[in-house]
């Protein structure tokens, strides 16, 4: 039964981070833009969502607004890069640093009174706070699955639904003209210019999507943390990239699987690895180090696989 509990934990985490990883798929894989903004926008999404919930507003509307806020700050990163010619890494650092203030000010403005900057928890959901759990299919899905050892179910279903909706929307978008143009932008900017389009615009759109997804991810995470925590965004770049690269290198050869599916599976597998490591009894202080080590391993394996593929490709050409 304990195993089932762990499975539930990594499935929940995996689904939350699969959205972040799909965002990374857009900015990193498609646009080839190493985007650090997500460390800030992840928290922004959580804050926006948290404010909606804490003020008793509709949590679904909160989720949509979280997405929009992520998009806006992603676009800011894009603008800095495209209009001012600042390097990708620096743009991300600038915007995510600025967002620390924006997030705190946002909380102060949105939560009358009870916010204390010195604690790490900036919004906490009380028992009676209506999150997505209560607002969605409340009566249809039991909160816990009694027959299977008391496994919480409703949250899992909600995360699954949100992640799948994000995946379907992204898949559909990538099949549109604008989506195809985005792929072309990451591949060959000169080609995009010859189509009479400014590749900068495409980049801004791609970064907006990537950070919108990060924000949704952060908003969902508030459910497992019962609130918003100042340190929530830290390490998101590693989680996003690791999930993305695990997914694409493990399933790289599988032809008839959408890249977004691979990325989702990658996120779940990564979280499963982390849970396994934790079960081995390693103190939680080592978490981030272990995350980094697993990621490094994946990178090395991923590069090997890539080189092999590259060799085949070159031989053909």
């Amino acid at each position: 039964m304990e195993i089932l509990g762990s499975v539930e934990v990594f499935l929940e985490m995996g689904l939350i981070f699969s959205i972040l990883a799909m965002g990374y798929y857009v900015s990193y894989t498609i646009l080839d833009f190493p985007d650090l903004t997500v460390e800030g926008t992840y928290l922004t999404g959580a804050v926006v969502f948290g404010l909606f919930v804490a003020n008793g507003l509709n949590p679904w509307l909160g989720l949509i607004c979280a997405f929009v806020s992520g998009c806006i700050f992603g676009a800011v990163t894009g603008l800095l890069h495209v209009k001012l010619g600042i390097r990708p890494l620096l743009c991300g650092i600038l915007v995510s640093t600025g967002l620390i203030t924006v997030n705190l000010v946002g909380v102060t403005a949105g939560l009358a009174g009870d916010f204390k900057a010195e604690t790490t928890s900036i919004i906490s959901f009380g028992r009676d706070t209506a999150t997505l759990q209560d607002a969605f299919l409340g009566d249809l899905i039991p909160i816990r699955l009694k027959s299977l050892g008391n496994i919480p179910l409703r949250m899992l279903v909600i995360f699954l639904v949100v992640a799948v909706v994000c995946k379907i929307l992204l898949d559909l978008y990538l099949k549109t003209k604008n989506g195809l143009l985005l792929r072309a932008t990451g591949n060959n900017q000169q080609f995009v210019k010859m189509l009479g389009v400014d590749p900068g615009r495409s980049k801004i759109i791609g970064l907006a999507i990537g950070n919108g997804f990060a924000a949704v991810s952060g908003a969902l995470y508030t459910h497992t943390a019962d609130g918003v925590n100042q340190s929530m965004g830290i390490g998101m770049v590693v989680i996003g990239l690791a999930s993305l690269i695990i997914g694409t290198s493990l399933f790289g050869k599988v032809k008839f699987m959408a890249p977004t599916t691979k990325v989702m599976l990658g996120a779940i597998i990564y979280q499963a690895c982390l849970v396994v490591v934790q079960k081995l009894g390693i103190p939680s202080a080592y978490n981030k180090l272990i995350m980094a080590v697993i990621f490094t391993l994946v990178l090395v394996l991923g590069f090997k696989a890539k080189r092999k593929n590259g060799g085949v490709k070159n031989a053909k050409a």
Partner: protein
Amino acid sequence: MLKLNNIYTSFAKGTVDEMKLFEDFNLTVNKGDFISIVGSNGSGKTTLLNLICGTLTPDSGSIVLKDKDITALPEYKRSRYIGRVFQDPKAGTCSELTVLENFALADNKNKCYALGRAINKKRIDYYKSLLAECNMGLEDRINTPIGSLSGGQRQAIALVLAGMTKVDLLILDEHTAALDPKAAETIMELTHRLVSEKGLTAVMVTHNLRFATDYGNRIIMMHGGRAILDKAGAEKDALQVTDLLGIFNEISIECGN
């Protein structure tokens, strides 16, 4: 049709390496011209094309296309009127996208890239017919990623894509240079057909003197940022490869080699 007026271009301005390439350069391209540009390495051919396409802006002077001053227009906006094929076969197509996806993108040129479906199934037969004209068997490989095609095949597709939507001017920068003699011949033949069928105005840079004499109605030889030879019509037809070689030799003697 296209006019370059009093163009000045220099590189590394304000440093000891300052290099003035164009000084008071003028060029008029008439509608329907097919100009071959030849000239030694570093004579400014690519720079000239970059000025026309907007990859570079001149230090001073103006560029006028169809009575419209386009000197300040960014490259991507000029593409509306100009199609371009590069020396590098990788530059004219997207290697990670399939042949079909490349066609779908190019087919939508000058229209809005919004949220409509990217690939219009009804157009596939049209794309295939365009590919069939290349005689490279490409019509059966419409779902292949471009990256796994050969350089010659990619260049053929780049050429078809550049000419697919209506453009006023076709710019070709040594577009056969990376290809084997047979493929170069095929691409040159395709270029000729495209230009004459669509009545395009074309400017082609080439190091292949035979292509320069055989194709087109006008020839320009560049040297040190100047057009030292500009012949059109019957005068151009009379010009032989050996004549051009002779001029090349004279130049290099002048330069002291």
